[in-house]
């Protein structure tokens, strides 16, 4: 843990204020403090939801993913040892949850198609419109690791280092995924236009 025992104990005495650091809240939540945990989740929910929406492009699904992430955070907090920053850890969980949801959706879509109710599927298309629709689609169709790297670095604006933390790989690996992804995006977009 990054928080030393002394400061953690000092903070324990105060209520969960908005100014308290993630590390402090995490330490207290790990020690079983419900209010600290609630504050932590509420603080980061907008970020989680934003990334979830960017991954899937669907309002309802983004909310479902965000909720799933919050539950996973509750289950996983005990194992979070502060080796990455808390936001990086959240990014990693969110990307995983979005990927799982994407897979589940692919299965549902296949089932629906088999049942020939294509009308249902059209309604579930991503909501973003305009000139960037093709780009969003191209990014979402990248292989998972590449998509994750592009989402974190280009869309969320993380540094390569932060993205590497979130993805649990070396910084050079992130750079490499980005390099491959960019080449593929260019091909995909050239084909689309």
């Amino acid at each position: 843990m990054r928080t030393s025992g002394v400061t953690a104990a000092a903070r324990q005495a105060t209520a969960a204020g908005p100014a308290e650091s993630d590390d402090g809240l995490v330490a207290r939540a790990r020690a079983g403090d419900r209010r600290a945990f609630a504050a932590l989740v509420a603080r980061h929910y907008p970020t989680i939801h934003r990334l979830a929406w960017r991954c899937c492009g669907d309002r309802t699904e983004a909310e479902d993913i965000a909720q799933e992430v919050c539950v996973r955070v509750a289950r996983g907090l005990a194992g979070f040892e502060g080796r990455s920053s808390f936001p990086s850890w959240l990014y990693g969980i969110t990307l995983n949850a979005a990927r799982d949801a994407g897979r589940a959706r692919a299965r549902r879509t296949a089932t629906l198609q088999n049942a020939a109710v294509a009308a249902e599927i059209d309604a579930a298309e991503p909501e973003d419109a305009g000139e960037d629709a093709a780009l969003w689609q191209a990014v979402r169709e990248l292989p998972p690791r590449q998509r994750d790297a592009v989402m974190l670095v280009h869309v969320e604006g993380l540094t390569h280092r932060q993205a590497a933390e979130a993805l649990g790989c070396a910084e050079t690996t992130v750079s490499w995924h980005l390099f491959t992804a960019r080449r593929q995006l260019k091909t995909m977009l050239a084909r689309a236009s």
Partner: protein
Amino acid sequence: MADDDLDRALDRLRNSPVPAATDDAKARAIAAAMQAFDAEAAEKNPAARTQGPAARRRLISGAGQSAWRRIMQNRIAFGGIAAGVIAFPLVAALVVERGVFVPAQPPVFDATPPRQQAGPNVPAETRGRGIVDPPKTEAVGAPNEQAADLALPQDGYADLPVAPGPDGEADIAVAPEPAPEAAGAAAPPPPSPLGGAAPARLERKLAAPMSTTAAFDAASQQAPARDRFEAADPNGVKVTAEAPVSTFSIDADTASYAWVRRSLAQGALPAPDSVRVEELINYFPYAYPLPLSREEPFRPTVAVYPTPWNADTRIVHIGIKGYDVVPAERPAANLVFLVDVSGSMDAPDKLPLVKASLKMLAGRLSDRDRIAIVTYAGEAGVALRPTPGSDLATITAAIDRLGAGGSTAGAAGIETAYALARANFVDDGVNRVMLATDGDFNVGTSDDDGLTRLIEEERKSGVFLSVLGFGQGNYNDALMQRLAQNGNGTAAYIDQLDEAQKVLVDEATSTLFPVAKDVKIQVEFNPAAVAEYRLIGYETRLLSRTDFNDDTVDAGEVGSGATVTALYEIVPVGSPARLSDDLRYGASRPAPAASADGEYGFLKIRYKLPDEDTSRLIEQPIDRSLETDALASLSDDVRFAAAVAAFGQKLKATRNTEAMPWDAVIALAEGARGPDPWGYRNGFVRLARLAKSLSGH
């Protein structure tokens, strides 16, 4: 589309509006999270989840802990009821384990001398082209670190299925006959006739179906890849004046090459983390001069020559070849195969390939050898009791009966395998457990340390472990490496039947019979001759300087007839490639002994004979008489190793080899193929061409 356009487009994505979450949804999410939080608190004893970072038991810089967490993470489905049931014994096991073995804080270990800062920022135009010091990242853990607390209890494997065999002799349960349809699906070929010709014939028979790898490769590519590799950044440049001594453990593994080959054959550049340059180099046999006797198991071959990818630096090539045990004095082998037959092995490139490989190896054994097979899936069992190698019919029949199904219970399997190996221990022979798995390996120990300790203890008792990796999709390279390293064995990756032929038939003696163990290399560079140096590869094998003379520190083993090669890229004093400036306030350079003026450095190799506990030392100066100015005058072996080194570094996307185009790598390898009786080097040239097209150059 140009890069600028793409950047602008991606910037638009960053700034595009995201529909805000409704308060309702947020409230629901928080409520669900609180419910899960409370459930966690109720289900788990807090003591069980506050696991401190486990101590590093082996001094390698890229320890596999995060890898193990990643595996355990996949086991999170054990939560809920299972977690409740196992919580109590788990707590007890952890208390015992942590109390006895694990300090509260991991020992601070830093084998890397201070990193020089000038590095990549030095303008190349003014300083010449240097060795590029890669940007360094801290080793980071898995994104989800929640993993380790849901392991099975430490003593989960204590209750092995112990039932007397029908004849009362075996004290370990025999695996039940597989279901008829499972056996049928495997379509066993008729048992091969006895005799040395069997493996070759078997190979031809199976060559046709196996050559259609493309079919199942395509299938496996559709699934998202969950293959796990240890992330290790390439070694940085060291300044000789600050850190003249470089120490590492040898690595005779070859797994990385087969993995890279498979990846390229499927049309994708391998992930940089899956490329270990030293394993690519060591995949190929080199004709280094052989040592004369077993007492001195190898002789170093050293060469210094201009770096193919940088005119201003030099390569120091250090090659060793293990003493080749002649068949007459080959020790008897007591082999226990531990075969993963869990459901995940049910793929054309997994269990069927394991079975074919096993049969190939069986054809190499004689009546002095014993082979046994232990399977593990839902529960562990013995599929073949120790059987003389000459009884090929019995062995083949047992192999044919293996069928995939059930979940993985690796710990019970590994215990059973070690129990069998110990029961049939050959005093003057080779006792080895060979694990064949895809790495989706659930051991009953509570963390990776437990497993490592088990393997280490068995190693000390004389039973070594080797790992054969199979399949793709959930391949766990990191764990394989760790297991083999701790078990005095090698890790090989079997991607096709050809590879099984190489590892288990052509190189069987080197795979099975070690001639030296705990082999460490230490090079002290002479600051008067070498300004900077960089070890190519071996990132996961670095040792600290003091480990070299410490006989308790484990290191790699060298098999009979095996070759191991290490390359350093050095910047000679006065070369424009130098990255660092002299220290203004540094102590003046220690004047080297007059006789050492001509030396680039001094090579020391420590090793133990397989049955000894005290290390021996080989020393040799790296002097200028070993230097060559023209690549062309070098032996094929040395030039080929340089080509492989360039290939590996290019795949690893390091900047050092950017200046060397793929065509130059291919040309260098093509001109250095030599006799190439097995066709490995021709295969490499094809692979380099493939890599060239895939990288878009």
